[in-house]
């Protein structure tokens, strides 16, 4: 493969991370796939359904979380394969070179992802976060501003986890306590002291979740205000009851107030079968910083431009938080843009400092990266990538 430009420090001088080798075993459409690259950018092209996004997903799974598709482990193994799967990579970053591996044995319900760092099993996924970070933009995110608040909270949760790895555990514990409380309320006649105990846990963890999200939104908003860009700048904040409580006073008072609200809502929540108050009802509000227009009110093109701007801001935010410019994974990101915006998209993406991975069925739309990236043309044969 011919040599392409190596990574340069990002705008905040955080060293970028990059994949140098990727190996997939029984992963989605791939039985046995391997690629190597030294470039600052990699372009994946080929017809629809050939497995471009699968490669981006594999890379995203080498960072904490459930990857860019949010898939369950059971869904990842190759169809008609043995059930297990693996993705491994050699990565370069500020801490040097590391070998990361993730995968699962023949997967059953409840089994967890196996993680290896430098050939040794790692406990949990946080070991991955020290070596690799990634920010992505996929076509599924095109409706981020118009779909339900769930997706926006998940988006913010992923960002919060980059500087607070315990955040995901707290959100899981909060939801677990909420489900237990609702189960007791729906049964009726539950021990009030048991409900007290669950509501105390919900309040403590819920306020911590809201505080971490508020911090993530603040950092994202700050990063969105920076830099020279051809895309509209976003303004970001989290809105909701718990955020209001946190804005009005210290966290302990917010916990007391949330606990009191939950206690007062028992009958209503039990009857409705939903919990009315808590950080699970909060939302990430995004507006165009210049016009003040809510992102959801913009045209498809305006929303896409704002989403690109938000993605770049997230990459800057992550770089500042962990001192390492993340990989940027862009799946069919150029589709809605004119040639001028396309040039800007790739120029700005490369300037962020982390390795850039771009996929697209229409190679013509990716032409601005010509001469600046390794090009991989994926054929229908599946396992073999033709590198040009």
């Amino acid at each position, binding site marked *: 493969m011919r040599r392409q430009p190596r990574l340069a420090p990002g705008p905040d001088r955080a060293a970028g991370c990059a994949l140098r080798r990727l190996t997939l075993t029984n992963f989605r459409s791939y039985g046995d796939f391997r690629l190597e690259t030294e470039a600052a950018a990699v372009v994946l092209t080929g017809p629809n359904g050939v497995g471009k996004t699968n490669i981006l997903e594999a890379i995203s799974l080498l960072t904490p979380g459930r990857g860019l598709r949010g898939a369950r482990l059971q869904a990842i193994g190759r169809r008609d394969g043995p059930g297990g799967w693996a993705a491994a990579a050699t990565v370069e970053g500020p801490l040097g070179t590391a070998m990361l591996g993730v995968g699962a044995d023949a997967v059953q319900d409840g089994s967890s992802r196996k993680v290896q760092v430098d050939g040794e099993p790692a406990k949990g996924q946080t070991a991955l976060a020290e070596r690799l970070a990634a920010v992505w933009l996929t076509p599924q995110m095109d409706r981020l501003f118009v779909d339900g608040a769930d997706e926006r909270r998940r988006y913010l949760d992923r960002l919060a986890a980059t500087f*607070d*790895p*315990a955040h995901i*555990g*707290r959100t899981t*514990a909060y939801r*677990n*306590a909420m*489900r*237990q*409380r609702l*189960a*007791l309320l729906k049964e009726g006649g539950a*021990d009030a*002291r*048991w409900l*007290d*105990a*669950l509501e*105390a*846990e919900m309040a403590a*963890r819920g306020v*911590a979740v809201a505080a971490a999200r508020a911090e993530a939104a603040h950092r994202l908003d700050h990063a969105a205000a920076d830099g020279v860009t051809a895309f509209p700048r976003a303004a970001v904040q989290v809105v909701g009851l718990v955020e209001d409580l946190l804005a009005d006073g210290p966290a302990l008072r917010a916990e007391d107030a949330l606990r009191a609200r939950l206690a007062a809502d028992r009958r209503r929540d039990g009857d409705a079968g939903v919990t009315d108050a808590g950080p699970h009802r909060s939302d990430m509000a995004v507006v165009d910083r210049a016009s003040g227009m809510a992102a959801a009110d913009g045209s498809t093109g305006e929303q896409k431009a704002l989403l690109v701007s938000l993605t770049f801001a997230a990459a800057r935010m992550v770089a500042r938080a962990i001192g390492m410019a993340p990989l940027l994974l862009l799946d069919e990101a150029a589709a809605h843009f004119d040639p001028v915006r396309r040039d800007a998209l790739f120029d700005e993406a490369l300037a962020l400092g982390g390795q850039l991975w771009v996929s697209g069925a229409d190679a013509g739309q990716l032409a601005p990266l010509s001469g600046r990236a390794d090009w991989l043309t994926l054929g229908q044969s599946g396992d073999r990538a033709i590198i040009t």
Partner: protein
Amino acid sequence: MPAPAVERLIQQLARLPGLGPRSARRAALHLIQRPEAALSPLLRALADVQDTVRTCSQCGNIDGRDPCEICRDPERDATALCVVERVGDLWAFERAGAFRGRYHVLGGVLSALDGVRPEDLAIDGLIRRASAPGLTEVVLATNATLDGQTTAHYLAERLAPTGVAVTRLAHGMPVGGELDYLDDGTLATALRLRRPIER
């Protein structure tokens, strides 16, 4: 294919915590290939356990006698009671040798989703023991998980009318831990629960 008897052994071993089918097969082979050194002693140990080991009717510990050695030991501090989820937690305290009072094993933690309710745990026995004269402190040593903490909170409310002092294990810096490696939640808890240095 293993003989049916061997297959049954593998299936039984695979049901044990921490053993999957592969490790169960290895363990079964190990036992079969070493009948004198491994299989016979294991059979005797299992029979001994079946014949002699029982659950302590006072604290829920597992022992050869009822009440157990700890409950019968007059040297134990009768003013302090440590509440644990399971017998394995009691053993952990005993290994550490840091607690000289007596124990109370709950038998699990509250979980509405798993159908574990207050009446499924040894809570009534705990309230009775906490109400006994002479007891001054109950230490809630449940795990720092959601269900462990919910159970501790619930027990604190149930124990309040007894008037006994209710404490729980501290959360924070592990012994030998380095600040740089602590997660934010542990660090924040350790700071919130800081203590004056004893002189």
